[in-house]
């Protein structure tokens, strides 16, 4: 084997080109690119670096190929599992740097995967997040207690009341003993009867009052904590960048709000009325039992291992079955939601029978899972009752013998039996403590995970107030990809002068909307810079920036509320006059006034009750009302009919006068009057000019126009 000298980059892959597990070395020198298999079926190859025209990663299902471009053709030369994708993306950049004589690094290739904690190797939910494994359980509990600290006074009161409650619950059996021994059997103190009964009533009454108080306080504290946690979570979710919502489904986030936050409520309730109470009860009763008769108390302990063992076995078996019940319930409700929302389609295609069969499947599944769990519980509960009873039976036998032998009084036996009745239930609860505790810490982890997430878009530390923007926009060598491995925008540059109307055109997926997303700072760019009025948008906070940008999207989004509230969403202090003016400019006034309640008409979820065009005109009125110096229209008319489009067009042309306007339009005819048209293709700016200039150029824009004209003439012919 020839000795390779002057190695600049070196790494390895885990698969050969055929998909077999293999160890293949990749070595890059200033002149050559080597593929050297140490295992697998692949052959050794090498290429002159000069001959390689480019590099690419071709993603397939479950793995990816590293490609080199030779003589205009991309060739798969290496294969790797997805775990190595990050490494090979870095390799491309490093080779390109090496070829261009720029600084490169071999260390960067073998750095740990950004989805793994560099300290312990445990996976992270998303890149850059805190490692849950490194956050110790104790640390989690400390944080939980820090959340509880605001209510520490109440927590002490609960604690104090609970101890009194436990002491009081130990009183009745003691009184029973006195009643039996001193009053009923020996008749020594017959006159004590009414007082003892009064003590019994009083202790029960005070205990009931204390329980009520503990319940009320712990529920109040629980709901207060839940409420403040929800507020903190919502605040955080508003702060987080859009990429967080790309990664996490709305369903998952909703779960954080509902069940995970409720777990905190559960923690306080459980702590107050569950495990702490049970611990005190066990200790208190234990003391009582041993103080009455230590030997008999030891007999009581006999069933304890069986109770603990039985409970653990049962929960290990049944707990996963509960998951299945929840899963079946979720599937059934998802199915119902789906079918009932699309009931019109179901009926239109006469699919009622098929949907009924599908419903039956989900309903039967739920029935089976619920039945399994309930049967298990039905078996478990009597078994536990039997075990508890066993303790009582032992005491009846041994204690009864002691009574007959005069070693124990009847009153003591009665008290003993009462205490036993109170002894085993807390024990079963405490056995499940670990399950409950682990569920609680999991929920806490999930909540802290959101609270600890840093927004992807970094905000400047210094907030600079902007009075009014002129509207000059410049993109300088901007590159960006939602998935950093696959850039959508590749080194794009263009400038828009203040007050200009600019169209952005290109095929679907070419990167038009991405430009808007970056301009609005919904995402941070990965390379290059965006300047507004000569200022880098990284130096302007998102909040301050967006105050000066009006955005009308393809899918108009209206909130539940009145039409007036929806129009004034961006300017809540707008006067009635301003709202009406905005609606008039947006050609919305006319249809709004047809509703009996005019501007006070309450809109349903997502603007239910309005047509697509009507919804869009309300969102335009919303943008007009804010009077932004920069207006962005992202396919604002593509989802409406021709008549609505005409009205929206009229509304929009009134809107873009005197402000920088960026229009992404599907129908190119709307851009004829634009000062400038930027043509994007495959993430690159390929043409810039006005309509006439680009038509003369006979490039991509010209072809798009010709294609649309031909389609329009076909439509015309069909109409004729």
């Amino acid at each position, binding site marked *: 084997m020839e000795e390779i000298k002057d190695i600049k980059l070196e790494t390895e892959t885990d*698969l050969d*080109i*055929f*998909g*077999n*597990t293999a160890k293949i070395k990749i070595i890059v020198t200033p002149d050559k690119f080597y593929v050297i298999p140490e295992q697998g079926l692949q052959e050794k*190859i090498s290429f002159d670096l000069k001959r390689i025209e*480019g590099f*690419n990663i*071709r993603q*397939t*299902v*479950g*793995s990816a190929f590293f490609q080199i*471009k030779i003589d*205009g*053709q*991309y*060739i*798969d*030369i290496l*294969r790797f*599992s*997805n*775990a190595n*994708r990050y490494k090979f993306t870095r390799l491309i950049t490093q080779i390109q740097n090496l070829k261009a004589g720029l600084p490169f690094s071999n260390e960067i290739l073998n750095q740990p*995967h950004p*989805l793994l904690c560099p300290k312990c190797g*445990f*996976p992270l*939910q998303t890149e850059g997040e805190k490692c*849950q*494994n490194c956050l110790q359980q104790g640390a989690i509990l400390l944080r939980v207690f820090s959340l509880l600290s605001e209510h520490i006074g109440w927590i002490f009161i609960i604690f104090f009341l609970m101890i009194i409650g436990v002491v009081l619950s130990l009183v009745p059996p003691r009184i029973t003993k006195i009643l039996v021994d001193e009053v009923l059997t020996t008749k020594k103190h017959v006159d004590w009867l009414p007082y003892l009964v009064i003590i019994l009533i009083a202790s029960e009454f005070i205990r009931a009052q204390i329980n009520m108080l503990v319940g009320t306080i712990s529920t109040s504290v629980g709901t207060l904590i839940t409420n403040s946690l929800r507020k903190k979570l919502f605040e955080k979710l508003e702060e987080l960048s859009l990429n967080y919502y790309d990664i996490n*489904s709305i369903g*998952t986030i909703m779960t954080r709000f509902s069940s995970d936050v409720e777990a905190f409520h559960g923690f306080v309730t459980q702590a107050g009325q569950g495990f702490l109470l049970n611990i005190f009860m066990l200790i208190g009763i234990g003391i009582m039992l041993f103080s009455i008769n230590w030997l008999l108390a030891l007999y009581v302990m006999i069933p304890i291992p069986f109770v603990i063992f039985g409970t653990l076995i049962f929960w290990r078996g049944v707990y*996963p079955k509960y*998951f*299945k019940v929840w*899963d079946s319930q979720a*599937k059934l409700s998802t199915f119902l939601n789906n079918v009932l929302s699309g009931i019109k389609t179901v009926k239109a295609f006469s699919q009622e029978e098929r949907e009924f069969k599908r419903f039956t499947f989900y309903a039967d599944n739920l029935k089976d899972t619920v039945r399994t769990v309930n049967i298990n519980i039905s078996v478990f509960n009597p078994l536990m009752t039997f075990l508890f009873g066993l303790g009582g039976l032992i005491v009846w036998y041994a204690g009864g013998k002691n009574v007959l032998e005069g070693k124990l009084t009847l009153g003591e036996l009665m008290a003993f039996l009462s205490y036993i009745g109170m002894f085993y239930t807390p024990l079963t609860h405490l056995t499940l403590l670990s399950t409950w505790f682990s569920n609680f810490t*999991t929920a806490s*982890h*999930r909540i802290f995970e959101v609270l600890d997430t840093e927004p992807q878009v970094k905000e400047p530390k210094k907030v600079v107030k902007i009075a009014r923007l002129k509207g000059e926009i410049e993109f300088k060598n901007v590159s960006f990809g939602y998935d950093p491995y696959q850039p959508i925008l590749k080194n794009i540059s263009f400038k828009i002068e203040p007050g200009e109307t600019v169209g952005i055109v290109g095929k679907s997926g070419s990167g038009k909307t991405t430009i808007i997303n970056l301009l609005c700072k919904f995402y941070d760019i990965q390379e290059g810079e965006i300047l507004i009025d000569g200022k880098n948008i990284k130096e302007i906070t998102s909040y301050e920036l967006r105050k000066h940008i009006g955005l009308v999207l393809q899918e108009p989004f209206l909130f539940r509320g009145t039409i007036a509230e929806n129009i004034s969403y961006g300017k809540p202090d707008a006067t009635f006059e301003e709202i009406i003016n905005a609606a008039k400019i947006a050609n919305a006034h006319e249809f709004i006034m047809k509703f009996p309640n005019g501007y006070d008409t309450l809109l349903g979820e997502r603007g239910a009750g309005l047509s697509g065009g009507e919804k869009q005109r309300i969102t335009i009125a919303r943008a007009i009302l804010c009077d932004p110096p920069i207006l962005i229209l992202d396919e604002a008319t593509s989802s409406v009919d021709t008549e609505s489009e005409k009205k929206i067009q009229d509304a929009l042309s009134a809107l873009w006068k005197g402000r920088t306007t960026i229009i992404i339009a599907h129908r190119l005819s709307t851009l004829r009057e634009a000062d400038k048209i930027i043509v994007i293709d*495959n993430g690159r700016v390929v043409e810039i000019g006005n309509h006439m200039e680009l038509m003369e150029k006979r490039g991509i824009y010209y072809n798009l126009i010709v294609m649309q004209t031909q389609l329009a003439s076909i439509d015309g012919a069909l109409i004729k």
Partner: protein
Amino acid sequence: MNPKKEYLTPENIKIFKGEFNTINVYLVEEEILYKGVFVVSCFPISNPYNFISIFYQKETGEVEEIGIIKDISIFSEEEKKLILETLNKHYFSYEIRRIIDIRWKFGFLLFVVETDKGERQFYLKWERSRAIEIGKRGKILIDIFEDRYVIPDVQKLTPIEKNLFTRFIYW
């Protein structure tokens, strides 16, 4: 895709081996040679070996469909072999033969398994979307790096393995 061609057949294309383990396709009528094509199944789960789409990669790196092979069996043995080899290159997964252990920690499941490619450990986010059905009784597990692990038939796992598996992947 060429709209004139309904499907690709041995009459209208020739498939042969190219350089560096690639395959090339020659469109007979149009007299066009596409080098280094790759193939993708239209129905990778329900009908993986029919309706196979052939793509080529342009100089820009973009890919475009040449056409679809409806029925692979009508091609010569050699061509069929080339298509299947290329098709299999597009899909990669580890087939789980035995589940050794599954442990839950902070919302992740650590799987220790024996696969067709040896023993492996992987982390799976404990979410429904990461364990999806394949066929009537199989499951695909997609780990944190998007690597795929297939259990062809959950029912064929041993009772202990099945119990362990369905304890976490209960859907």
